[in-house]
């Protein structure tokens, strides 16, 4: 993974330029903040104070989903699940948004000879879309495998038209694309790709990541994965975001050593 070279983490105030509903419970917010838009790297995240009140108390981390450095904004994509995301969804256009960032390391881009394969589960698409944006800017193409519980979230696919992506979809119920989980789909299609020099980038729920870990190990594929854990600070002070090292020698801290890890180096929890 690429270490964060731009060390300027900031406590910043952005402005909400726009808010979109992707589905009933998936939202996108566009935040104006030039420095973040300019220096954020794919895989990095910001830690947002979603409400002025004590409820919820802690910040909530969100991946940077897309940037527009020229216009000085970036976007986050999230699902409304609890107090923090509910508060976020209620923020009005033009209101201020208080965040710390950009935080964490970032995906290492492939070298020109490598074929990028992006594997997303649900909202795991969030950081991978930013990666796809960078790849497109670098004139690199990539394959995206995206799994979801139902076809609902795929109304989102028009967003991909601006990206240099070949897309493969999977749904649990088969309502769109392959019926089954996205790692099975990847397994099937990868044979067709007939290309061993691939580099996998993944983000999604842990069961998916575990399946991917097994698959990558079996096929000896390199795979970078972006992890989620509970976080308090987001910048290495609280020691709350630990994940176990694969060799059992201790812990990584997701906010600082990650969120992007080589899938071989970590133990993935239930």
């Amino acid at each position, binding site marked *: 993974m690429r270490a964060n070279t731009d060390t300027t983490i900031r406590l910043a105030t952005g402005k909400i330029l726009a808010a979109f509903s992707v589905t009933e419970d998936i939202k996108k917010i566009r935040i104006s903040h030039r420095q973040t838009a300019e220096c954020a790297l794919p895989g990095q995240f910001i830690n947002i104070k979603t409400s002025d009140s004590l409820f*919820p108390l802690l910040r909530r981390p969100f991946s940077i989903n897309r940037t527009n450095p020229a216009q000085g904004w970036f976007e986050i994509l999230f699902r409304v699940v609890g107090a923090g995301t509910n508060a976020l969804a209620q923020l009005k256009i033009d209101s201020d948004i208080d965040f710390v960032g950009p935080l964490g390391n970032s995906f290492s881009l492939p070298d020109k000879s490598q074929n990028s394969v992006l594997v997303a589960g649900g909202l795991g698409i969030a950081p991978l879309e930013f990666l796809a944006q960078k790849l497109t800017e670098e004139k690199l193409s990539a394959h995206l495998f995206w799994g979801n519980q139902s076809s609902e979230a795929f109304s989102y696919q028009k967003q991909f038209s601006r990206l240099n992506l070949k897309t493969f979809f999977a749904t649990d119920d088969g309502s769109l694309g392959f019926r089954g989980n996205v790692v099975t789909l990847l397994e099937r299609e990868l044979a067709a790709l007939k290309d061993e020099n691939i580099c996998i980038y993944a983000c999604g729920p842990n069961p998916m990541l575990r399946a991917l870990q097994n698959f990558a190990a079996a096929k000896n594929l390199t795979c970078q994965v972006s992890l989620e854990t509970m976080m308090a600070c987001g910048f290495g002070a*609280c020691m709350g975001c630990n994940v176990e090292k694969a060799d059992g020698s201790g812990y990584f801290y997701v906010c600082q050593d990650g969120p992007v890890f080589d899938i071989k180096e970590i133990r993935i929890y239930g």
Partner: protein
Amino acid sequence: MANLQVSLGKIQFSNPILTASGTFGTGEEFSPFLDLNHLGGIVTKAVTREPRAGNPHPRIAETSAGMLNSIGLANVGVDRFIAEKLPFLKGLKCRVIVNVAGKTIDEFAEVIRRIESAGGMDGYEINVSCPNVKEGGMAFGTNPDVTAEITKKARQVTDKFLTVKLTPNVTSITEIAIAAENNGADALTVINTLVGMAVDIRSRKPKLATITGGLSGPAIKPVALAKVFQVAGAVKIPVIASGGIMNVKDVIEFLITGASAVQIGTANFVNPKISEKLVDDLDSYCEEHQINSIEEIIGTLKLND
């Protein structure tokens, strides 16, 4: 500018705003956000003799106006602390207090001794109140005799400022406070976290791998105030308050109740600039209320009409 200086016996702080152990790393982590030298002092994350990896994942959970943690004193150990952190800390102009923990009664003094041989810091905070370790920690801090012995042994290896950090998870905090006072503590830090728990009802698992953990944040402020009130009334040495401090009103509440300084903990995660901001806010508060010296308000709680 009001005079924010506070004197805690043998040590003075430029202002009463310190940061709480385990919530501020070794300070360096907060350099992007504020000027550490504006603070009254920093209390480091706990240092132990051996390196410690800490407890399994998950280690934190949010609760109503609070959070649970079970970090378990993860740290690089005293030798790497001396090699890697001490040089940075020695360069600071604010006070630096090292929080010290141990699995055995002797370990506390041993950690202090090694830091002292490396030149020492401004003072030490004896952490006999961590609820997140099996050996030592709170088991020591709930026992007045053990607290007494650890304090006494620490006192033997240093003349520096020594504060003992007390746990609220006891029937009588004053008993433990007096044991520490009688054995050489220069001050008492009141309080460490409360034992708490949370359950994820979907998985039916505890939200922390260690099942229970330490509760901090605004939820515990009323408990911290009550303990500061009790301890300040029972000992002659100064009290440093910790527990749920989020804003300048909270700081004033604790000073009025009898604390000579305060520590900012969980609030650092919510707003990484908060400790420095509180120094400014405290100054403004004093100006507004014509308080020349912050020491004027310490322990001024009015008990009768």
